[in-house]
């Protein structure tokens, strides 16, 4: 009986760090979620999709402008 108890205690102690670790991680996730609830979620676009959009986009600006001078070559 005592041997069985020892075995079970050993098993419990073996698993203890993992239990603590997962509890801390879960608490961290919950904390992060609570803190970030005010920030909007970013709906990002891939570079491939952006390149497709670039090809098809139509600038709605009429007319043209004179650009300001280009930077120096050594700048």
């Amino acid at each position, binding site marked *: 009986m005592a041997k069985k108890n020892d075995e079970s205690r050993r098993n419990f102690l073996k698993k203890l760090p993992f239990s603590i670790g997962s509890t801390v991680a879960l608490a961290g996730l919950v904390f992060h979620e609570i803190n970030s609830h005010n*920030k909007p979620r970013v*709906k*990002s676009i891939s570079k491939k999709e*952006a390149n497709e959009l670039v090809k098809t986009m139509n600038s709605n600006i009429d007319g*043209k*402008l*004179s*650009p300001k*001078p280009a930077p120096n070559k050594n*700048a």
Partner: protein
Amino acid sequence: MADMQENNKTKQSRRNFLKKAPVLALGTIAMAGCNSEYFQQNFKILSKEEKDKIVKNLEKKYSEKYGKKFSVSDKPAMDNTLFAYALDISRCVGCRRCVYACVEENNQSRDPQIHWIQVLQMNKEKGIDFHDADVHYNPDQVPVEGHFYLPTQCQQCENPPCIKVCPAKATWKEPDGIVVVDYNWCIGCRYCMAACPYGARHFNWGEPSIPNEEVNPVTHYLGNRPRPKGVVEKCTFCVQRTREGKYPACVEICPVGARKFGNLLDPNSEIRYIMENKRVLVLKEELNTQPKFYYFFGV
């Protein structure tokens, strides 16, 4: 005999001390007369009184140098503020007005030239390709057929690699999300420039030159105050303006309204509307730098 030796030793040591005394005295006088900037601590750990004293000294120094009354603010970040920027690629025509508004507002050196904003001209067929981008384009009129424009500047990353590599902790992220540099604390090692994947940091190789009549006297300690030679500088989302509730200079000047700016934590802000209703592109997303500079397509 032993007594005489002891006496000699004492005399010798006194003579040595007296020899060194004038040097020590001169050193002490020089130290006292030295500018207090050399003994300044990192801006982050300064007390309110120390900051006030430094700011006053800087105001005096700049006013004497440029012949104008300078104000140097040390206003901290506002509560519940996280600044972000959005740029409509389909609207930008590449006129570079933002570049020069930024130069004037932020007291960037004219010679050697420093530009915090760079406008890249890219080929529509090739898409977003930094190797093929042209920063020195110079046509009579823009936009040029078959091309589009991608302005780049500091992306104010949430996870900025530049601050991790600074050995002096002279650069950090403020609570409102702006990455700043303490120019008095920067040692000019340029590690941050190497770490930045966007090429957004610039080094003052020479003494920056700003014409007296063009210098902007309304400054912030962590922003647009004139920088010394040998330090790194970058876009600060015009911290001297945005912390006073104004738009950055580049947003105000843009003739086509391609630039949007606001507080991400304000549900009624324009930037928040864009984030919630548009799909946005961030540069080099795979690096997990989490930029707060979003590109989008309005049309």
